[in-house]
């Protein structure tokens, strides 16, 4: 925990770990990065912010950390409003836009600087725990500039976890990692969640999100498109994803069936089919009976739900900044 924690937020009456109220950020040149975003992240949850590039995820995370000032609205962490340098930020660990360390200092020295900057009460114990988590071995005393991509990310994760924060904010924490390293990060997130830490993260790896998160919010053009538990986003009705040789014809066939299932393109040759009480066999029979060649069929997942929510990506307005 940080050096000067506010009131603990674990009881039922306590405020949520994160509350965004009408959060809006207008960047220069009239670009609205985040647009009246209302969202609550329950304490102890692992919540993903999803959305295409430019949907406002990173700007939202930066407003959570007091790095960016909202144009309108506000961010509350554990009931306390976030401003630059706010005390409540002592309860937050972060990895945003990749690692950022002093290149001529070693990993150990960089973590020492972080410990001293906020005067963490754990001192050397926090430092030792972070170094163990970074798993740098002898490289801990080598210059940061010599580190590999994976070592830099591990060090950044270790820095984010310094002092066991109550809220962990992670922006694409497994970017560029090999599968083994990504699994290590997933385990660290799981351990944090098990210890009661609230985690807010962004990622484009939706299978990863499905595996480690219990909630998600989908943003598009800075607006909230959907939010809820992963199960809610997957939908209560079974979702079937079929790969066909002619999506237009297949969509017309399926939409004309009794029960009028919802049919949404989720890829160049794939359709998500929801509702209508149709089983796999019925779908296959109807498609093949009308001459549509079925290349594959599987149960739907979060990625399909996400793509169905976003609809046609070409409908997104062009984004002028990294949002």
């Amino acid at each position, binding site marked *: 925990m*940080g*050096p*000067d924690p506010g009131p603990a937020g674990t009881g039922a009456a306590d405020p949520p770990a994160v509350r965004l109220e009408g959060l809006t950020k207008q*960047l220069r040149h009239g670009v609205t990065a985040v647009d009246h975003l209302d969202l609550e992240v329950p304490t102890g949850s692992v919540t993903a912010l999803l959305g295409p590039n430019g949907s406002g995820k990173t*700007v939202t995370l*930066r407003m959570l*950390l*007091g*790095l*960016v*000032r909202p144009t309108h609205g506000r961010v509350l962490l554990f009931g306390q409003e976030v401003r*630059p*340098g*706010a*005390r*409540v*930020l*002592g309860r*937050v660990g*972060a990895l*945003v*836009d*990749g*690692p*950022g*360390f*002093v*290149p*001529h*200092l070693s990993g150990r*020295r*960089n973590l020492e*600087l*972080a410990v*001293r*900057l*906020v005067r963490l009460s754990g001192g050397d114990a926090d430092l030792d725990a972070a170094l163990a988590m970074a798993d740098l071995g002898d490289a801990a005393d080598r210059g940061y500039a010599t580190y590999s991509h994976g070592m830099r990310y591990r060090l950044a994760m270790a*820095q984010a976890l310094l002092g066991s924060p109550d809220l962990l904010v992670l922006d694409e924490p497994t970017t560029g990692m090999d599968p083994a390293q990504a699994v290590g990060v997933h385990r660290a997130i799981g351990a944090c969640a098990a210890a009661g830490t609230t985690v807010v993260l962004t990622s484009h790896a939706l299978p990863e999100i499905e595996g480690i998160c219990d909630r998600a919010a989908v943003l598009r053009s800075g607006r909230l498109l959907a939010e809820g538990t992963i199960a809610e986003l997957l939908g209560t009705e079974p979702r079937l994803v079929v790969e066909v040789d002619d999506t237009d014809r297949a969509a017309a066939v399926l939409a004309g069936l009794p029960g009028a299932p919802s049919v949404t393109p989720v890829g160049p040759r794939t359709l998500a089919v929801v509702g209508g009480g149709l089983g796999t066999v019925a779908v296959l029979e109807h498609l093949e009976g009308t001459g549509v060649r079925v290349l594959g069929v599987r149960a739907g997942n979060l990625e399909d739900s996400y793509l169905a929510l976003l609809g046609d990506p070409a409908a997104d307005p062009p984004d002028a*900044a*990294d949002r």
Partner: protein
Amino acid sequence: MILLEWYKQVRRPRTYGVLVVVALFAVALTVSLAATGPAQVEYVGDLPLLMVPRTSGWSVPLIALSSTMKFFLPLAVSLFAAESVAGDAAWGSLRYALARPVSRARVLWSKATVAGLLSVASVVVLVVAATVAGGLAFGWRTLDLTDGSASTPGHPHVAAFAVGPLVGHLALATLYVVAGQASIFAVAFFLSTTTRRPLVAVAGGVGLTIVSRVFNADYLPGIQVVDRYMPNNDIDLWQHLFTRPADLAGIPHFLILQAAYVVVFMVLAHVWFTRKDILD
């Protein structure tokens, strides 16, 4: 906070690289003067001060200050000022410092303090290295200085400075040159808060000295009005400390001008940095 910033900067190869280069310049200058003929007269600065370097090692710090105050030292000062905020932003470490419960003002002024101390160090290292190198090469003896502006053929205005007064006047001259870099420091530091490219801020600091020299009434008498407000044009007035009688009339205006630049650009840096969005 200041100690943390100091620790980061003094361990940086570029920091001691700049200070080593400044010291090596003083040594190279001494070697060059030693290699020149024994009775060679040097015309130092815009005044000019006339001296025979090999008669006293105290000549070397005066020549070193004079030859570096308009470009070399501004470059060193601009580097320290520019790297302080923009360097941290370029490394990506600035956003992690600012995502902590630490006031932005504290972060900024810690950086300003350390960059300022390193800037002062660059001038002091130059003078100390030149004094040591000059003394070892030519001895720390009384120095005869001729006021080139007041001398006429057959009537040179010569002032002989013993070691004691020389040390005092050299200390004052060093302080004056330090003060003369303050405007450049403030401009480069402000620019450093607006960019994550340190070279942009370095270019701003050095560019200011170039603009200052362009708008110099010594070369273009028609721009006298603008010349008074250029930050670097009167930085050579310390040379009057080594004439008799000393004409110090322009020094208060110059120091007030430096203070004005510092106040304006450091306030701008504070306002900008404490309100800016950290988007990169």
